[in-house]
Each structure stands twice: as structure tokens, then as C-alpha cells.
């Protein structure tokens, strides 16, 4: 069951200030409507994980870790490996995150990031099959939010993709029906990349990469994920208010444009 949440009270003065600035083409931190905050990526930060990436987007900090294990395939896709994305909004990241199993926000975050990776077929899951119907590689991507300063979606998506690019999986051989892991490592079979861009609607304008203050006053937000071929592979509207048809079309255009920047930063 999903219930409307109590949110932190925002000072009316601040709401008005942000709305005024936006109507004059400016944002609270001086960015233009289409600017991302500074993005920093560091990979391989957790050696025990098969892959990892630490991303900061402004003051938002995300840590993503990839663990690769051997398990069973899903019954309806016996010749495909498994990809699972999980997100934790741990209480250390924000006074607003409560203790407990992932709530609807954490689950939505994980599923939106997952959708981008899955629908773009970023990982060639068939190449993760070891023994059809019996054994496949299971790839866990765990997204850990460490500091929430707005736009967890984009930061998490960048961290997830960077950690998958960074990930190493063991090479193996099948000997007498058993898997023998070889000492060499190889990269995950990546064949596409997904780029996730989130925009918030404030007044009737769209702003890319909302900061936390913008998220607190926005009408709603929309996330558009595109792939390396310029195809749209996932979308998500989130929030209480509405988007016009024009807003949606503008958002798609903006996302395609900003995807180029993310692509450059990821180096792909």
C-alpha cells in the first residue's frame, strides 16, 4: 500500500525565492536550467566487490558495488544470467531516511535504475549463462546512498553503470559438467550503455538535475533514460503534480542532449 507522505515543511519565503528566480531564468545555486552539478566518479574503491564506483553529483554521494555469484536462472529465461539492482536509503544519508527495509522510494529508485540497464540490454545476459537451466552468473548491483542532496536517480544510475564497467568476473571452463573457475578475470559482457537524466518541473519550466531544495518545491519530476544509439529505453514520472504534453516532449529532447555529457564523463 502506498500512502501520501508527510514531507518537511518548506519555508514559503524559500519557495517564493526559487519560483521567482526560475521565472527569471535563474536557479538558486547559479546554474542554468540545463546544467548538471559537478560530477566526480571514482571506480574500484571497494576491492572485495567485483566492481564498484563512488559518485558525487554536487553534494549527493552514492556508492555502488557489484557482486557476481553463481546461481540458478529464472525459469522463464533458462539461458540468461540474472541482473538484480537493489538500493538502500540508509539513515546516515539524510535526516529524512528512516530505518527499516527499503521503502517505496528506495524500491522505485532501484527499479528505475534497473529498467535503464535492462531495457537497453546493457549486459548481454546470454553471455552470463554457464549451463542452461542450471547455472548462470548472478550480478548484484547494490546502490548505497551516502549523502542526499538531490537527484538520487541520476547519481545512482551513473554509479551503477560505472561499477558494471569496472566489474571483473572470473573466467571459467566447464570440466566434466562442473564449473572450474580460472585465475584470470574478464570484464562483464557489456554491449550498450544507458544514460539517465532527471528533470524537475517548477512553475512551467523544466530544470535538469534538481538540487534538494528544488526537489522540495517542485511540482513533479521526470526521468528519461536513453541508450548509446539515441533510443529511449525507459521513463518515469514521479511526484504529485502534472506534466503537459509539451513538457514531456521537451524533457525527452533535453535528456538526449544531456546524455552526451554523461557519456563523456563515463568515458564510453
Amino acid at each position, binding site marked *: 500500500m502506498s500512502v501520501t507522505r508527510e514531507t518537511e*515543511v*518548506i*519555508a*514559503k*519565503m*524559500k*519557495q517564493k*525565492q526559487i519560483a521567482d528566480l526560475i521565472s527569471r531564468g535563474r536557479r538558486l545555486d547559479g546554474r542554468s536550467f540545463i546544467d548538471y552539478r559537478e560530477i566526480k566518479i571514482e571506480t574500484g574503491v571497494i576491492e572485495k566487490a567485483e566492481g564498484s564506483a563512488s559518485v558525487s553529483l554536487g553534494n549527493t554521494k552514492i556508492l555502488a558495488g557489484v557482486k557476481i555469484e553463481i546461481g540458478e536462472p529464472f525459469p522463464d529465461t533458462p539461458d540468461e544470467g540474472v541482473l538484480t539492482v537493489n538500493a538502500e536509503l540508509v539513515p546516515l544519508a539524510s535526516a529524512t531516511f528512516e530505518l527499516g527495509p527499503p521503502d517505496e522510494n528506495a524500491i522505485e529508485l532501484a527499479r528505475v535504475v534497473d529498467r535503464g540497464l535492462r531495457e537497453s540490454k546493457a549486459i548481454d545476459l546470454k553471455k552470463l549463462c554457464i549451463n542452461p537451466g542450471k547455472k548462470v552468473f548472478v550480478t548484484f548491483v547494490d546502490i548505497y546512498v551516502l549523502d542526499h542532496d538531490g537527484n538520487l536517480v541520476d547519481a545512482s544510475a551513473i554509479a551503477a553503470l560505472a561499477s558494471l564497467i569496472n566489474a571483473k568476473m572470473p573466467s571459467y571452463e566447464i570440466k566434466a559438467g562442473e564449473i572450474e573457475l580460472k585465475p584470470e578475470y574478464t570484464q562483464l559482457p557489456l554491449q550498450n550503455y544507458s544514460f539517465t537524466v532527471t528533470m524537475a518541473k517548477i512553475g512551467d519550466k523544466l530544470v535538469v538535475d534538481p538540487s534538494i531544495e528544488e526537489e522540495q518545491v517542485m511540482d513533479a519530476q521526470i526521468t528519461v533514460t536513453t541508450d548509446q544509439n539515441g533510443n529511449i529505453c525507459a521513463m518515469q514520472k514521479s511526484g504529485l503534480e502534472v506534466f503537459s504534453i509539451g513538457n514531456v516532449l521537451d524533457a525527452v529532447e533535453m535528456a538526449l542532449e544531456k546524455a552526451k555529457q554523461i557519456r563523456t564523463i563515463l568515458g564510453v
Partner: protein
Amino acid sequence: MTIIAEKRQLVTPGDLLAEGNYLTGESTFKEGDKIYATRIGLVDTDGRSVSVVALKGGYIPSVGDLVIGKVIDVSLSGWVVDINAPYAAILHASDAIERPFNPQRDVLTSIYDIGDMILAKVAAYDRTRNPVLTTHGPGLGKITRGRIMEIVAAKIPRLIGKRGSMINMLKRETGCHLTIGQNGLILISGRSPEDEDLAVLAIRKIEEEAHTSGLTDRICSMIREESQKRGVSNVSS
């Protein structure tokens, strides 16, 4: 009897400050006849008492403090106000309404609504109940214009300076009206957003370097340089 730490020395929790018949000041505690620091900060002493001016730490209300707060709830008898303290503050309806309060006729939200910012004074506070505010007094009440920024409450004294030296310099150099809440919130009201931007920049720098010396002069020079760079016309230049 000795004071072991030097004035303005940086200390951390558990550091020994003095031994002997001294009085304990802020952010210190006594064990036997030894006085220790409870927080990170700079040592201060007047010969009779030893205290630590904390560099980190939230706001603890004190009766008489001027505070800037955000109304977060309205009940039948008054308002609940967030003043950035460990406890939410209460403003009674009877305080804001001159004549006797009539719940049938008086609509509290028309006086202060959720999301309004108010300038108030702490009228009562002890640890057994939440702090009580009052908006009786000149200039107190709803804030309608200007910009509000927040710094670590522990650094407010540095922002004011000795006998107001820092705050007066800021007002003079930026041409802004500044109202300082003891709880770390500051109301900036300038003639233009650019003047206000300068004030925000200066206050941030003061917060970062609160524990250094020669700060007032450095900030003054910085403001003058920035005004020139930004082409902002200034009262004093």
C-alpha cells in the same frame, strides 16, 4: 592552581584545561579539581573561570535569545516552530493575539501559517519542557522580505565579533541590514540581490575561518575586492 591550556588553544573532548579552584564555563566539566573540555573548540579564560568556545555544536536555547524560526505546525492553542534546536519551540496563541483568544473567531493560520518564517525571542526554557517563544516586541513577528541563511550556531558569536566589530563591518561594507538569530539563522536584507550575495559570501567565509585571527580585516578586504570584481556599487568605497 594552574591553567594548563593556553588562551585560544584548540582543544578536543577530554583535554585537560586547568587544575585548581576555577569555575567551569561553557563546554567544560569538572572532575575533582580538574577541568576538561567537552567539545572541540578554543580555550578562553578570564582568570577565574575556564571555558571552551565550541567550534561545533547545535543551538541550545537560552531565555532572551533572538531566534529566527519556521512554523511547522498549527494546533488549537498555538504554533509549533522549528528553531534548529534539539527541541521544537511553542508559540502560544495568546502571545500573538492582543485581546483574549477566542478559538471560534480567531483563525490562527491567518496570523502565522505553516511555512512562515518568524523573528521571535525565547521567553521560557528549561530542560523539562519545550522552549516557549514570544513575538511581543519591536520588529518581532512574521518575516516577509529578505534572504535567510544558516550557519553553525556555535559560530554566531564570531559573526557578531567583539562589541559588534564584525557585524558592523559587514553591514557597512555590504550595505545590507543583518538580523542575527542566536540559533544560527541570519536574515539578510539588502538593496539588491547582488549586495545580498556579497553578504552571504562573507558570512560563509567567516563560518569557515571562525577560529582564526585577523578575520575582521581579511573579510573586509575580501568584500571590497569582490565588490570591485562584480562591479557592485558600495556604500563605503
